């Protein structure tokens, strides 16, 4: 395949089989044999798209349009239906704000674990530990278990960790924008562009059309699992 392509999706369909459950023991017992109560839901239909290296690619659509399913397929967390092909060129990582903390561990321990998952060595993590904690503005709470954190503190911590992540393709699921308060937001915005975006491929899923308009090179609009349009942000957003 072409070397300048980061992600190639060919003919992606995704059907979820939902098991609806009866509430009584009798309902459940009978559905065990009859196979009743299963429904098929087509989350994605015939999605084919190529994303180039270094591109900032936006995905928009209403709730339930298949955005997150598509991201999970790109990430190989779930497989597409038979016949679909997913080719990724480089290490792929999804960033979402709710992700990845063990509540029993302190910020320090979580930084250790998460950064390791994100590809850093223990030595590198140790040398960057204070920088990460300072950036997240959590100096006094570095040794507090994360379960006592507010959601704002958690998202600031996640952002600070993710900035150091080593991956070629980032799938941002409502990740960017809306982290922390105004001050933090400004700081995050700056570092995000200096250190993060350069040379990396970014797939950006968001409802915030302003950030999409501002940063994306190309945008894809999904509706009920189908591609409605792909193109320049302004043109595609108008079709929504």
């Amino acid at each position, binding site marked *: 395949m072409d070397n300048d392509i980061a992600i190639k999706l060919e003919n992606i369909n995704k059907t979820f089989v939902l098991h609806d459950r009866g509430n009584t023991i009798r309902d459940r017992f009978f559905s065990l044999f009859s196979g009743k109560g299963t429904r098929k839901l087509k989350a994605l239909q015939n999605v084919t798209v190529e994303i180039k290296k270094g591109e900032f690619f936006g995905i928009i659509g209403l709730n339930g349009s298949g955005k997150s399913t598509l991201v999970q397929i790109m990430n190989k967390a*779930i497989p597409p239906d038979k016949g679909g092909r997913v080719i990724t060129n480089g290490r792929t990582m999804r960033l979402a704000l709710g*992700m990845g903390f063990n509540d029993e561990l302190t910020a320090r321990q979580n930084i250790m674990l998460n950064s390791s998952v994100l590809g850093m060595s223990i030595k590198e993590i140790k040398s960057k530990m204070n920088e990460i904690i300072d950036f997240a503005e959590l100096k006094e709470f570095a040794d507090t278990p994360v379960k006592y954190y507010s959601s704002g503190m958690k998202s600031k911590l996640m952002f600070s960790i993710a900035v150091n992540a080593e991956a070629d393709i980032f799938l941002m699921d409502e990740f960017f924008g809306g982290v922390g308060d105004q001050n933090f937001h400004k700081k995050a915005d700056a570092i995000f562009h200096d250190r993060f975006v350069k040379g990396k491929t970014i797939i950006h899923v968001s409802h915030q059309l302003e950030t999409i308009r501002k940063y994306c090179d190309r945008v894809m609009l999904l509706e009920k699992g189908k591609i409605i349009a792909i193109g320049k942000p302004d043109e595609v957003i108008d079709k929504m």
Partner: protein
Amino acid sequence: MLIKISRNFRNRLERIYLFANTDYYVRYYGSKLGILWAFLNPFFQILIYYLVFTYLIFKIKDPSFILYLFTGVITWQFFSETTNSSIRLFLKQRYILQNIALPKVDFFWSLIGSKFWGYLINFLIFILFDFLFFKPVFSSNLLYLLPIWIGLILFTLGVSFILSTLYVYLNDLSHLWDITLMAGFWAVPIIWDYHIIYNNYSFMLLNPVTAFIINIRQVVLENSTPDLKSLFTALAISLVFAVSGYYFMKFKSKKALEFL
């Protein structure tokens, strides 16, 4: 290229270590006695069985029965605790699996690492206990522990692969496995005399856990070479479980995140 591969490999090892460490830490975190529980739990279990069986049921007069129990209980505990936690492994790690495609097998290595570390510490306590109250004789036979432990790890891994993957499709498995372990505790010579097996029920040696527990006792308590025939059979069965379990997990766990 080579540097990059070795860097990735090192990162992988470090990650496995960090997850194992976390598993160990979180289990005892927050309790007042902390890590001490890792020893107190098997200690009391052994004490209870010892008291019940020496005073209430069998009226065994041999105090070394406690060593027999000790080896059986801690080895069984390693197997049962590991397989039990493996069932919900994908569920527990889903927050990571959702975000980055890591080799799933790494989570199994971490789990085994953490549990086997606990087992080794208990084994060390057993040795100390043995020296303190009995007069054990050890020899180079102890080296047989190595293949026995490797076999035990392989079998435990194999069962864990299968359980964790089946759980994706069958949530009832956690309850079924509870019952299986309950029955297993009595089907394995933890409390009763293993010589019964050699006399009448040699088919039971086909259960690798049974074979390994017997082998461990032959080495540690009797200072003899283990029954090599049962050891090799158990090793072969364990290897088959580990390899087939691995491929089963690899191919059938793809939909894990959809269903869990």
